[in-house]
């Protein structure tokens, strides 16, 4: 039986992943038509390639349906409680770096820290009769972060894309999202709280702790090649 490697199925993340493996003598290629999510691995024996959405890779690793997978730290920690028990880091791949941060309107001259945010949250609730809304797709990470930091009176509003636009659209007062250069934040007139870094993320090769590793030889050959 072969071991399965799951990698992101599209975009720059896929290309960089292919490059990263190629530099180590493991060649990933897509097969079939452009739209078909099929692929193969050469350069190492008995490995098969599974192309998946990056956001599904944590679940597949945790379920043991793939043996190895490439996805961001942000998605693993958001989607898998006790991720350390379910997956293990094989290698940090050095690309796809992004920070999960809290950002507020740049025009909020009075707000720079979580302490300010908490104060504003109390006043906002009093003034508007509703909680300050934070748009995000990282519900668990944001909630845990704010609970640990002791920030109260906020509501998380789900936003699966274009999160930076939610403030201008008045569906949220601030956001918690991934940023790399901060350009999109600036373009949307948002600024990062000085102590609002929730998580540093990068593309990472993970091993599933729950998948059965039937053939130790295949496993060793693969991991040694990457070492």
């Amino acid at each position: 039986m072969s071991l399965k490697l799951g990698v992101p199925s599209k975009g720059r993340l896929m290309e960089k992943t292919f490059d990263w493996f190629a530099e180590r003598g493991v060649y990933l290629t897509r097969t079939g038509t452009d739209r078909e999510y099929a692929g193969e691995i050469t350069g190492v024996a008995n490995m098969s390639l599974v192309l998946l959405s990056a956001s599904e890779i944590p679940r597949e690793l945790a379920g043991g349906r793939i043996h190895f997978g490439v996805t961001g730290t942000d998605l693993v920690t958001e989607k898998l409680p006790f991720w350390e028990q379910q997956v293990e880091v094989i290698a940090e791949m050095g690309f796809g770096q992004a920070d999960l941060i809290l950002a507020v309107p740049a025009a909020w001259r009075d707000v720079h820290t979580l302490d300010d945010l908490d104060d504003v949250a109390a006043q906002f609730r009093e003034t508007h009769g509703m909680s300050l809304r934070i748009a995000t797709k990282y519900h668990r990470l944001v909630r845990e972060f704010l609970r640990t930091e002791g920030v109260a009176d906020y509501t998380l509003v789900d936003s699966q894309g274009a999160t930076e636009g939610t403030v201008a659209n008045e569906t949220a007062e601030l956001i918690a999202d991934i940023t790399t250069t901060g350009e999109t934040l600036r373009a949307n007139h948002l600024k990062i709280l000085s102590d609002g870094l929730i998580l540093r993320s990068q593309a990472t090769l993970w091993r599933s702790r729950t998948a059965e590793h039937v053939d130790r030889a295949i496993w060793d050959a693969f991991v040694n090649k990457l070492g």
Partner: protein
Amino acid sequence: MTHPRAKAAALRAIFEARGAQVVEPPILLSAETLLALYGEDIRGRAYVTTDALRGEQMLRPDFTVPVVQMHMAEGAEPARYTYAGEVFRRQELDPDRANEYLQVGYEVFDRANPAAADAEVFALMADVLAPLGLRAVTGDIGLLMAAVAGLSTSDRRRARLMRHIWRPRRFRSLLDQYAGRAPMPAQVDAESEAPLNGLRSAAEIEARLAALAEDAETPPIPSQEADGIGSLLKVQEKIPFAIEQLRDLSVDMPSIEQAVERLSARTEALRAQGVDVDQLDFEAGYGRTSMEYYDGFVFGFYAPTRADLPPVASGGRYDALTRRLGKGAEIPAVGAVLRPKLMMELEAAS
């Protein structure tokens, strides 16, 4: 072997025999009410479901909220209620904690004599749990609230501290700032070219800038007062000695005098109920990390040899909760819950 449900029914029957009315609150509660009370944190601890008509509903994480709502809507005074049923707790951090378990509760809504009502609830739990040899811990959130209310500082600072009584970490960092022991984070941008997006208005920003400027001029909380809060939170003794220590503290912190007298009256009421108060533990910081809206007497019963278990019973006074759910009305209230399945496990082990 008895089913936990039978055990729960038997416990509820005991409470009913002591004069409590049996109530059966719904399992599905309005998420809006719980979110308004507990904030977003409740989503990490309760299961949420939805339907197109009613919107978000939560599987009840406890009975207190629906019982209070029911009482405020239609209850006669005074009232004693009992109930038994499942509560549902979403577990994101500890896979060993049950996400569904039985609770049996007893709640008292009575204006006449709060000390006696506190003692009644505690003594009833102690009675039912007596065969298990548990250790009881008591506390009183009212002491800390009184101490904060008595700080010589601005309303704004007192209000911020009061809001974080149940979040010890932020409470501590605010107190350190206000006592001049940690730098104030106040930093203000001179101007911002950015257009103002979102619901928070320019007037709100200006108002807070003014409040911050005023706050910067507020003299620090005297260190004697800040230290007083620290000493108060460290009190951890058998009740009679705790009262002695608190009386000593109240010489320099007169704001807590009444709260100490309430504790003293409660202790006498407990003694009158036959509770061995000389052996009863008191911890001033107890009950601060639970999300419950306890604002006075708090207590829990623990298995001394099983530190891994949650409390077998817990309870306290929640006057403020009735105020928040009562839409203007309020009534002093105190109650407690038992976990029948844990009781059975401990009975089987002994």
